[in-house]
């Protein structure tokens, strides 16, 4: 009786897998329409097709990357940067995404005035930017577990070898550093929300309204952090240090709905 039930379960699982495979074959690549339009030079049309794929739930790095390309080719630089950033967040080591993001940032008409970052800041940025939040957090957790195991052995007078105790100190320190980096990455991507200026130029005002004076002019492609929202106006902190208010119509937010790439075969 038990053998029969197992066989039936196996058969049902196989059927479900076959149905899933058939559905995939019928649906095909959800980005195919956009890719065809892109190849034909209809970049606006391709951008629309990719946006539809995003709305349909295909919010992985490939969709954001291709959409960023189509927007870049349509001279919508700010929006392109936002989507390259979203793709980079999910697949930070992908060479194409990194190259196109750098290219798009260099194409900005005028970057925000900013002092050069210190080597420590630059190194931390590079380190944080090279891994996903999940990778940093998982690695930090694994090192924390190893270090904790040695500490527990020591506390319980199980007499771990001296070499293991030294390794635990190193692992613990490494776990601490990775935890700080993971927190930095979590903070930079989730709180406050990232955004990019998407219009040719706009004034960063001292308050939420046209009546407030313009403190600084932001141009297309400036990277921002949104720190507050007030009925159509956003309080922002620009990468160059400028703080103030911008109309929400002038920016595009970097998508943070998803998080990380699911897997390449998807």
């Amino acid at each position, binding site marked *: 009786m038990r053998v029969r039930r197992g066989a039936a379960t196996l058969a049902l699982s196989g059927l479900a897998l076959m149905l899933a495979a058939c559905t995939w074959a019928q649906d095909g690549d*959800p*980005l195919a329409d956009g*890719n065809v339009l892109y190849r034909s030079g209809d970049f606006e049309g391709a951008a629309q097709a990719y946006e539809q794929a995003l709305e349909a*739930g*295909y*919010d*992985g*790095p*490939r*969709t954001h*990357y*291709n959409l960023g*390309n189509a927007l*870049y*080719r*349509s*001279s*919508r*630089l700010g929006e392109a940067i936002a989507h390259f950033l979203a793709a980079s967040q*999910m*697949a930070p080591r992908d060479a*194409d*995404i990194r*190259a*196109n993001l750098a*290219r*798009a940032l*260099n*194409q900005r*008409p005028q970057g925000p005035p900013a002092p050069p970052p210190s080597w420590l800041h630059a190194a931390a940025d590079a380190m944080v930017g090279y891994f*996903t*939040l*999940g990778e940093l*957090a*998982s690695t930090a*957790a694994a090192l*924390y*577990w190893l270090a*904790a*195991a040695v*500490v*527990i*052995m*020591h*506390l*319980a*007078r199980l007499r771990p070898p001296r070499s293991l105790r030294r390794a635990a100190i190193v692992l613990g320190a490494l776990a601490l550093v990775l935890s700080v980096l*993971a927190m930095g990455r*979590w903070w930079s991507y989730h709180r406050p929300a990232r955004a990019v200026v998407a*219009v*040719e130029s706009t004034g960063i005002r001292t308050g939420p309204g046209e009546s407030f004076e313009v403190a600084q002019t932001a141009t297309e492609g400036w990277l921002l952090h949104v720190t507050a929202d007030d009925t159509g106006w956003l309080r922002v902190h620009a990468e160059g240090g400028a703080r103030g208010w911008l109309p929400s119509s002038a920016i595009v937010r970097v998508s943070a*709905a*998803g*998080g*990380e*790439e*699911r*897997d*390449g075969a*998807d």
Partner: protein
Amino acid sequence: MHASLSRDTVEVGESVDLMIVVAGTVRGVAQPEVPVVDYLRVVSSGSSQNITFANGRLDSTYTYTFRLQASREGTYAIPAIDIHAAGQVLTTQPLTLTVVATTSPVRPPTAPPRPPTGRPSPEPEEPPPAEEPPSEDVFASLEVDNESPYVGQQVTMTLSFYQSHRTSLLGSAEYAPPSTEGLVAEPLPDPPSRTVPLGGIPYEVIARSTALIAPAPGEYTIGPATIDFRRGYVMGEETVTTDPVTLRVRPLPAAGRPPDFSGVVGRLHATLSATTDSVRVGDAVTVRLEVAGSGDIRQLEAPELSLSGPARVYPSGEQREVGPQTTGDGYVIGGTVAFEYLVMPAQVGEVTIEPVVIHYFNAAARRYESAQTAPVTLRVLPGEGGETSLRSEGEEIRYIREDGLGLRSHLPVTSRTWFWLIQLAPLAGVGWALRRRAELRRRVADPRYRRYVEAAATAQARLSRIARAGEPRSVHHAVDAALTDYIAAKTGAVAASLSPDEARSRLQEAGCPADLADRATEMLFRLRAGVYAPGSSTAPRPDEAIAMARALLADIEARLR
């Protein structure tokens, strides 16, 4: 973005240029439309575009020029003009134009009459037949030079106002232009007024010419046009009306139409030139394609250049100067359209830009013809650093991806509750370790406690070490010793003086039930019988003794733990 007028003040009939310049990184600027302003008309228009690359940055400058002509004095407000660029709407500032009366004497439009006629006249300048004097002193005629043109072919429409010299008018006549619905209308410069004799009576003729182009085959009705005038202060306003004119527009012949026909009906010639004939790898040279001639060449689109060698081509600018062009017979719409390209050779050697061919339809010859340029050859030298080919890395964005990257995202592990819960597990381990550490310290500090808690483990270990196949007496002795030491440790007695009966009473004092204490006492008696009376029938077998002792230990431990 900036809008300006070439002059702020003009005389009636003079032209002024309205220039709109859009500059910056903006791209995809659509042709702006000048709002309709009464008595101000757009005589011609032109546009140009320039793109420059500098430090990896692409800058564009779009320039649109509109030539305006005012027909009445006054102050004209040109409203703000909307310009659409890449999804944005840019707006110019409003402008003001002052039009003053002409300083030359203005003649009232007096013209000798000829009866209104719908007859087409091949030559509008030709005086009407003079055999019979016209019945009216004032009349008008509307004529076209070709009633059955091809699609895209220019037709010149002439509205003529005749006033006899015998009649004088008060002020200027006002005319309403004829309707040209469905046709592209382009005002032509006004021909000078002239005097013609009609039936022996001199008539003053004032004409207005307009170029018409039909975008599709079919019948188009032009007019009628009306002209209002007064003969004196006390006279009422009079109106003369022309007959309407019908155009029967023919389609272009299908026979012989080239697949890449440009759509221009007229006559064209084209030239191709480069700013230099040699260029280094990595540098760009500007190549200019100039197409000039008659016809509505505003519709020409930049053709793609065909190159024989490795090079990159970027469209970099356009200039369009299209408007009425004078010919021996009058005016035709035409001009020059120039397309500029940046050509960046990618490899040392030669790059030849193949001849550019532009096909048009010659309406006079009724056939398709071509304007062809000569080829342009560029000599490509090594770059400043001696490089012989152009590196592609980083120059353009990388291509879209069709695989290798995921299509969906998922929440990072830090968004899962279980991830944070399992991080608490090491804390539980630390708690266990601290408890164990305290336990070990207590055992060191209190030997009696240590003896009590370790008694069972010690006894079990001793039982495990007894050889089952050993000599029965020694087995019974070892089991008796292990059991006696265990009971002494658990009850705080001295093992050496612990008899079976004393064991019973101590176990009962310690909390063991009577039956368990009896079992222990009996077990000790039987073991000691095996030691002191070998072969006794009450002594258990060695293996049985070990098993019974283990079971007894477990039961006592369960009660006294």
